[in-house]
């Protein structure tokens, strides 16, 4: 995928809705296209974090294995961000990510993203704001999930 195509794809993703045009271009330069087949593992729990993904199309499941049983705890789809821990230094991946369908994504090298943020704080602020929004939504969703809403209160307490 050429940079103009990446730029065009990126522009349509909700992740960049508050970015200035030049900031989107800067992000596009850092991206390359990734394709994953159905059931392919995108990353595993504990992997040294390296890549950040914006899903262009397809579905990705976040999985965790507990007591020999693998649970899907979240699915992400078109336009959603994946692998935010790559924006932090020395964080391993918290979950395993698996393509549930064929997945097309924009892939960013975490170290290069961090470097770009350091060099251009305005860009860095914009990017971190966008990641922060993603994290806030995930946290809210996770809190609701933790309430275990559909079990009777007695079974929860």
């Amino acid at each position, binding site marked *: 995928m050429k940079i103009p195509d990446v730029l065009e794809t990126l522009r349509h993703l909700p992740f960049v809705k508050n970015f200035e045009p030049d900031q989107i271009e800067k992000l596009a330069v850092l991206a390359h296209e990734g394709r994953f087949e159905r059931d392919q593992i995108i990353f595993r729990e504990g992997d040294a974090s390296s890549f950040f993904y914006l899903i262009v199309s397809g579905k990705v499941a976040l999985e965790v294995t507990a007591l020999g049983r693998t649970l899907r705890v979240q699915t992400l789809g078109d336009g959603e961000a994946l692998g935010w821990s790559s924006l932090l230094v020395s964080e391993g991946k918290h979950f395993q990510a698996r393509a549930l369908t064929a997945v097309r994504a924009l892939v960013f090298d975490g170290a290069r993203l961090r470097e770009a943020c350091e060099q251009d704080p305005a860009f860095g602020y914009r990017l971190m704001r966008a990641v922060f929004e993603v994290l806030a939504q995930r946290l809210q969703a996770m809190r609701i999930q933790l309430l275990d809403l559909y079990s*009777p*209160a*007695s079974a929860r307490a």
Partner: protein
Amino acid sequence: MRLEAKELASLIETLRRDGYEVVGPTVRDGAIVYDAIEGLEDLPRGWTDEHAPGRYRLLRRPDNALFGYVVGPQSWKRFLLPPRVRLFSVRRNGDQPEIIADASAEPPPKYAFLGARACELAALAVQDRVLLGGPYADPIYRNRRQDVFVIAVQCTQAAPTCFCSSMGTGPKLSGGYDIALTEVVEGAESWFVAHAGTEAGAARLAALGAPEASPQDVARAEEAARRAESMITRRLNTAGLRERLAENFEHPQWDDVARRCLACANCTLVCPTCFCVTVEDTSDVTGSHAERWRLWDSCFTQSFSYIHGGPVRASIKARYRQWLTHKLSSWHDQFGTSGCVGCGRCITWCPAAIEITTEAEAVCGFPPSSLRSEQA
């Protein structure tokens, strides 16, 4: 009309002869309670009651007044909305259950209520609206209520717990009765000024053949009634009360009262308007016979608001708040009237001496209308 004791006795007698179960005040277990009475000898002659927050005592009067007390713990609701009533029984008929309605099977007694006070008649009107005034009518209440003959008694004294004048329900009788009596004590004995509120009441009075009350008699009765009015010291500021209670859902006063409230449910049991009930099924061991009973319930119990797994109102704070705001605020939304008639029973019978008037005004941020009563 002026009645002497003997004419009152004959009024009771004729009602009984006409098939009424006459229910009136009588002394039992150190309190004045309502029960079936046969004649004047069952009335609390020469007794009075002393009320304070968390305190009730019977005392002797210096005279032989028949109605010389304020209010007892019970109200008339126990006769119209019985504490425990069977709704139906189920009998196995082959394998199909046969449901036998109880309430309609045996007609309830035809009641004559003797001694109802103004606040109590207001409470009857409130319960009428709750149980008869909506799209559904409670058949049990309706059957018991429809033929009630009411002989009201004008209050001639008041307790420090009374606040009917704030609630606009008394102490002056203003309807809801067939016959109204005002007792006038003269020396050791008493006589009554009676007037009719309905045609049925007028007919019964006329049948007694008693003389008309003289203007002096009427003046004496009015003076006695004014005495009750002047004895009322407790006030509840109702201006904006309903709205402020609804707004002040979070208020430190709720936490304060929750530390004192025992959630014992006494207030709801003695309240003449509280109508909440629950149902309970019973069955014999073979399962061939089952019954469903309706029992008084209270919003102060945890089970009251239970839904699969937990109570909605788990804390005492939430339960006290539900009771008070229902009574004084959301009752208006539901039934177009206050749920409180100012009888003061919840104050007298609260073991923690909690005063609804004080709590409500504190939650609303109103300056207290009444001086906090001295603990006896």
